[in-house]
């Protein structure tokens, strides 16, 4: 009895020491506090571009004038697209000014959502889905392949500034798992795309990276040539005929 207790306790103690060094996986690209750097400090001027000012007006028009702060997420998104995929402090301050709130209220929002990048990302920010279905289908290998091919760590930008790799939560493409998302910030907010590439393999993601590098356009969606959208490989295997309507809806039969 006592031996069993002791063994159990020992197991618990061992568990404590068998921690992975990265205890909590952070999805965010930056820390929860800001450290001044030459390209990211509150003194840098930042303003919405002329084209985006019209968009800001359009976004604000969606909300009642006394609830301007509701526009914080779309405005931060717009600012992020304009600023090459990430939000410096001065951009957040500019958003706070537009919606008339204290800057800290904007910082709270942008630190909450992992899709707001508060440190520099590449022109193509590759996001690997890390949620369970994709993980079971090999998303870790895909991330490893990407990181190895680009020679960077997670959330690190390649030397040419083109690519960075991050992780994100489920995007609802589990039927085509594993998937990656490519956020394309190379053309500012006008040419901004956010495309899913599904059914990827470690080999295929490297090809995708190289195609992006060459500036080629490739169709988003499943990367498995034998699949159409989320249909099964090699065509349907069930539900081949027209589905029979339920009897209660068959008005003639009544």
């Amino acid at each position, binding site marked *: 009895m006592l031996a069993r*207790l002791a063994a159990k306790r020992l197991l618990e103690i061992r568990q404590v020491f068998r921690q992975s060094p990265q205890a909590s996986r952070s999805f*965010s690209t930056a820390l929860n*506090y*800001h450290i001044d750097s030459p390209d990211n400090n*509150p003194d840098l001027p930042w303003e919405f571009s002329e084209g985006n000012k019209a968009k800001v007006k359009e976004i604000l028009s969606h909300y009642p004038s006394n609830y301007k702060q509701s526009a914080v997420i779309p405005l931060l998104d717009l600012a992020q697209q304009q600023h090459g995929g990430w939000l410096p402090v001065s951009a957040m301050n500019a958003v706070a000014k537009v919606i008339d*709130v*204290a*800057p*800290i209220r904007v910082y709270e929002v942008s630190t909450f959502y992992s899709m707001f990048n508060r440190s520099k990302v590449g022109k193509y920010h590759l996001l690997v889905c890390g949620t369970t279905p994709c993980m079971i289908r090999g998303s870790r290998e895909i991330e490893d392949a990407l990181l190895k091919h680009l020679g960077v760590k997670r959330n690190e930008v390649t030397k040419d500034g083109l690519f960075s790799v991050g992780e994100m939560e489920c995007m609802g493409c589990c039927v085509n798992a594993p998937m990656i998302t490519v956020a394309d910030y190379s053309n500012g907010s006008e040419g901004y795309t956010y495309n899913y590439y599904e059914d990827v393999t470690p080999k295929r993601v490297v090809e995708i990276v190289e195609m992006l590098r060459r500036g080629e356009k490739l169709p988003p969606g499943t990367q498995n040539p034998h699949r159409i959208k989320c249909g099964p490989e090699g065509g349907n295997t069930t539900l081949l005929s027209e589905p029979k309507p339920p009897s209660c809806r068959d008005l003639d039969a009544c």
Partner: protein
Amino acid sequence: MGLGLLASRAMRPLRNSHSSVFLRTIVSKPELQSAESSAAAQAPPEPDLPPRTPVGGARIHFPNPEDAIEVFVDGYPVKIPKGMTVLQACEVAGVDIPRFCYHSRLSIAGNCRMCLVEVEKSPKPVASCAMPALPGMKIKTDTPVAKKAREGVMEFLLMNHPLDCPICDQGGECDLQDQSMAFGSDRGRFTEMKRSVVDKNLGPLVKTVMTRCIQCTRCVRFATEVAGVQDLGMLGRGSGEEIGTYVEKLMTSELSGNVIDICPVGALTSKPFAFKARNWELKGTETIDVTDAVGSNIRIDSRGPEVMRIVPRLNEDINEEWISDKTRFCYDGLKRQRLNDPMIRDADGRFKAVTWRDALAVVAEVALQAKPEEIVGIAGRLSDAESMMALKDLLNRMGSNNVWCEGTGTQPSADLRSGYIMNTTISGLEKADVFLLIGTQPRVEAAMVNARIRKTVRANNAKVAYIGPATDFNYDHQHLGTGPETLTELAEGRHPFCSAISNAKNPVIIVGAGLFEREDKDAIFATVEAIAKKHNVIRPDWNGLNVLLLNAAQAAALDLGLVPESTNSIESAKFVYLMGADDVNLDKLPNDAFVVYQGHHGDRGVYRANIILPASAFSEKEGTYVNTEGCTQQTLPAVPTVGDARDDWKIIRALSEVAGLTLPYDSVGGIRTRIRTVAPNLLNVDEREPATFGPSVKPEVTGKMDTTPFKSAVENFYMTDSITRASKIMAQCSAMLLKK
């Protein structure tokens, strides 16, 4: 305390069920293992329960009698007004619900989940702080379901909380510590690593140990709602969530010290008090603050002869439960620069310590040689009523009536009490809907009054207009102008703001006491009274004309009639008695004048003094003070006096005897009997005495207003008197926080 009672009740079942404790690694109380079934098995509560008293004297006020609803807390029927929360209903019923995020003066967040209670017909325990009480609700706070819920919440809260109570300054007065003893399990099941969070730099007053934070967001809500500085926020999400300012930013609020009190754990603690003392070693003395004219209620915590810290005391009428940073952190000034021996200036200009007998003999000799009209007495801004009475009596016996209190100007008018107190009262400001601030910056002059105005602005959308030099406000305001010409426009009805005042239901005009120093003050006050009359500010049911005083001694000095006979008595003075007066302009004093400085700090007044008589500070004596709204309060001695110092009134009484003009009292009681004949309101302690007559009985003023704009009365919020000027913490604050 209610919590202790609950704790003993919660711990009792543990004692009779320790048979299985040894065998289990994870122990929960057996009846908690299947909460629902044991709840069903429990007998219905017996009806003849002893009556309970509300927690912390919780009172209920029914604004509308038909809105009363009845709920049942643990079987007790309680009548409460509609709109109260379940937690408030429980408090009225005398049940203290454990809580971390809920604070009665802040908005409801409902994120700590500690206040879970069982409500009949509700499938899950409900967070009582955020749940409105509904008629007939049957609330159960002591059932296995509620206890299990609390135990679970407590286990989650303690998961990421470091076990550093032995080195934590909150230890002994920590809500988490107390409540985990009362409601927590005796061990947790969490075996992973605890998280750690980077500490933030919030300035010289608040120390942060963010790993201890339990994310109750009380500090964020306090900063946003009460202090009005939107600096703090909740950053990140999930387990990475933390309180911070994101960008490196100090908390530049005059109320920032209050986050130390509202933090339920040791995440925000006092930086100057860090590792100085444990709270159970301290002796608390309930007294009042004298650093401004508000008279905030405080508790001085002392250990032996040393003041260790100052914390606020609840007083709904004056400071609610907040105090300003100056009040809270000025205490280290009480230990520095103190005068502890009577001293006489030698021929070579150095001070030499002498005995009291010699010092008083010298003073008496010089005083008796001076002609009555050459004798001047000035009370300082921290003087209590007793000593000011004694000073006035002594000088009157010497034949002089040139005695006044600094800060009341050259020609104070003490005839009409309504002309120098806050007639609306501090708590009455909450009923106002328009404020007109004339020559006053309440944020630096009286931070607690400013907190009230801010509260009103937030609650009633009250409008604030301001006349004076450009300054910081922590609420929306209209800057109407900088000087008397704006007053003229308002009085003549030419200003666009006039319509706002006349349309207001309860308009409030606050005039700063800084204007007392102006030559044209009578004309200014006449104009202000004209504005008040024009816009119906003074009605039988509402008096909205106020003066915001600057110093703790001012109101009592004017009540006692400390008014100088001539305006330029300093220029011809031969004998000047400074009773703690440091801010009088002595430039015009003749060189051969003899200056006695009686006070507790070697401050500005000492430079010109010929003789120093050491006195006790407010923390060391029993003294009467009247605050800016006319409420009489008393300080109590918390620590012994320093060195050979004596109470102010005792020194004057001794001097009168040496001079052969013995004052007819030799105890505080005797001096108060004397005060009764002059200003009986000073004996009604903790009561506010309203002014009897309004300004309507005032004689006509003929003078004209100067065009010079108003000046700000307080240059540095952190350093206004001899105690705060001696304080190292206040010096740090003015160096770091006043930088623009």
